[in-house]
């Protein structure tokens, strides 16, 4: 598109290739998505220049974030190895991905097959190979990281996918990187990992996403809404529906992962990475409908305390305000999200659910409990 060409700054062109790379995954319906906002790089930030090819190890990389990230890395000219158990194919062609691009990626991506919980194997296989940079996309516990660090004493950078779930719940929002974290949270493994990295003297960077969405999402975030919209069902939302959450598109997250690579400003830093704006639960239901071309949904509020859902989750989000400021990443890295919420949901719908693909079958059992009770109350 001409405006991208016009806006080539005199700075590192390799980063500016990203928008076009990402646009490969857009279906034809998405012509209204304009890569309108150029990524501004702060002066002095070390950029990934095409000449500094790195030998990169991705822990994971075949499920969601890593699928997009690994493609960007390969496009940047790096040698990329995915460490996985091999349960999912190392490469699969994505909807909207041109054949030539896919075959190029497939021919270049490497696989190191193993179980990262097998610490001895991790240590020996990694030290045999040697890597410049590790992207740890699927690490959950600190002990998983130690063998990697032990195996790679000259590691240039350890880039970790953490989570905004580490923040301590607060009446004061948004969550910022300087805020208190919760050592007892469900995500304490992520926190322990960050602390371990900080204590080991390695050059590390940690990204904390909020809720990630986009095509191939295996967490039923947008999919949960799409199932109900497609079935023409009301959307049951707990309590008031004004709880505020935040979604970040996987492609924007992948871009952030690229922008911290070899970036001095990212050294030993944590960054929240998510969408520019937040959204209420009610608003999210409406945004999903808008993105997928469904009529505005009927929303039914309920008090979750009045029900026993057993082990089932009646709603995919934590029932509280949960959102984080991305201003640090914007200021320090010059990163910014490309996707608005509706645009991003449309991208997800058009490349995934709207084509008939999804990860979890629809399960309306908790909905029926809620709706059944509300029908009874009405009569």
């Amino acid at each position, binding site marked *: 598109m001409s*405006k991208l060409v*016009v*806006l080539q*700054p*005199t*700075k590192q062109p390799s980063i500016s290739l990203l928008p076009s790379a990402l646009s490969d995954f857009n279906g034809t319906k998405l012509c*209204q998505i*304009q890569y*309108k*906002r*150029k990524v*501004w*790089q*702060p*002066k*002095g930030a070390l950029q990934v220049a095409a000449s500094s090819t790195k030998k990169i190890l991705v822990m994971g990389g075949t499920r969601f974030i890593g699928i997009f990230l690994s493609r960007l890395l390969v496009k940047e000219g790096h040698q990329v190895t995915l460490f996985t158990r091999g349960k999912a194919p190392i490469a699969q062609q994505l909807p909207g991905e041109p054949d030539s691009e896919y075959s190029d990626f497939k021919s270049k991506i490497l696989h190191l097959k193993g179980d990262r919980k097998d610490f001895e194997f991790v240590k020996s296989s990694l030290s045999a190979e040697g890597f410049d940079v590790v992207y740890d996309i699927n690490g959950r516990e600190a002990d998983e990281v130690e063998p990697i660090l032990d195996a790679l004493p000259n590691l240039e950078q350890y880039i970790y996918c953490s989570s905004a779930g580490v923040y301590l719940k607060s*009446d*004061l*929002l*948004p969550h*910022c990187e300087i805020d208190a974290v919760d050592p007892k949270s469900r995500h304490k493994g992520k926190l322990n990992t960050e602390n371990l990295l900080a204590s080991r003297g390695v050059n590390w960077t940690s990204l904390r996403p909020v809720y990630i969405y986009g095509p191939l999402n295996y967490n039923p975030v947008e999919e949960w809404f799409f199932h109900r919209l497609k079935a023409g069902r009301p959307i049951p939302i707990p*309590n*008031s529906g*004004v*709880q*505020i959450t935040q979604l970040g598109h996987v492609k924007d997250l992948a871009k952030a992962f690229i922008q911290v690579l070899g970036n001095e400003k990212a050294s030993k830093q944590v960054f929240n990475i998510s969408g520019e*704006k*937040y*959204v*209420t639960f*009610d*608003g*999210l239901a*409406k*945004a999903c409908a808008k993105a997928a071309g469904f009529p505005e949904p009927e929303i039914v509020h309920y008090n979750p305390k009045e029900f026993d859902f057993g082990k089932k989750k009646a709603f995919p989000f934590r029932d509280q*305000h949960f959102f984080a*400021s991305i*201003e640090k990443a*914007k*200021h*320090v890295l*010059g990163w*910014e999200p490309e996707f*608005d*919420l509706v645009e991003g949901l449309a991208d997800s719908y058009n490349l995934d659910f709207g084509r008939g693909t999804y990860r979890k079958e629809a399960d309306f059992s908790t909905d029926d409990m809620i709706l059944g009770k509300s029908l009874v109350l009405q009569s």
Partner: protein
Amino acid sequence: MAALASSSSSLLFSSPPSKLPSPSLYPLPRLSLSTSSFLSSSLSISPSFFAYPTSSRRYSAPSFTVKASAGEKKKVLIVNTNSGGHAVIGFYFAKELLGSGHEVTILTVGDEGSDKMKKPPFNRFSEIVSAGGKTVWGDPADVGKVVAGATFDVVLDNNGKDLDTVRPVVDWARSSGVNQFLYISSAGIYKPTDEPPHVEGDVVKADAGHVGVEKYIAEIFSSWAIFRPQYMIGSGNNKDCEEWFFDRIVRKRPVPIPGSGMQLTNIAHVRDLSSMLTLAVENPEAASSNIFNCVSDRAVTLDGMARLCAEAAGLPVEIVHYDPKAVGIDAKKAFPFRNMHFYSEPRAAKDILGWNGTTNLPEDLKERFEEYVKIGRDKKPMQFELDDKILESLKFAVAV
């Protein structure tokens, strides 16, 4: 690199085409606005930092600090309202400017002898005078006469909510050679949204009085900045804020909050607003043609505010939620904050002015509570008619 002290540098900051008033203030829906700003920045001449973000996109290189007129002392006129939540802004701003060596005149609407002047911050105007500032009173429509022909570099209108009130001030300022016009608008003009927070550039309510004022200022002045505040705390406040919670907490009364209590709002210490305004005065080129949400950098839930007030007071709190419609009362009368998310973020100030918020509600509320007790308000007899009506409807027994 970025220190632009010479007059030739002002060319680099002369508004690129995208900074015409209407696109900046009232942008087209996001996609097309961004396109137009994109193209205009592509037309600009190198160097690359000339393609500075417009008010709708605020990504400044962090090393970029604009201090074009740092060190220059200004003559500032503050036209200040004589009542309400915004009154205290002019008081802090005046004192901060005087502390930085600027000359300040504060014109308060009305008469010096009126009853309104017996309330804070007006009853503390001696602090402005002893710091070297001038205090005058009068009708803003006659501002030229009221200031007896004095001239100023900067005018802040912290008074008018509609064009009829502000226009005479703007016109006089222009004709008397004022360089920079600043205006206290309101974040209340943002259209409610499902996607908080309100950020600068978001759609505003077309029929809001402040909107007409903002447009007019942008037409008349080339160096202007608009500030949209929300709620404030701070000594000298003319309107109750935290006191509403303290009144109930110290008397061991339940705190009735409409709706779920999850509504987010922004309550800033007024010193944060003052520092933002001061940065605009001292960096007019950077501030020019921009809207700034004049708020702290954290939002708080309504329940959260009640909890924080109680913690500051060292007392327990019982929060009670109610539906105003079901009770049959006007929430606006019963509760001092909007019964909805009212949440903006100060992104432009951080990006463009390098402003940082210092509001720390847990700490600031302690100080507020100390003053609350010091003036004896905790012992003051009070009626809670609307509270009682709410509690009665919820069948809540209150110990007398």
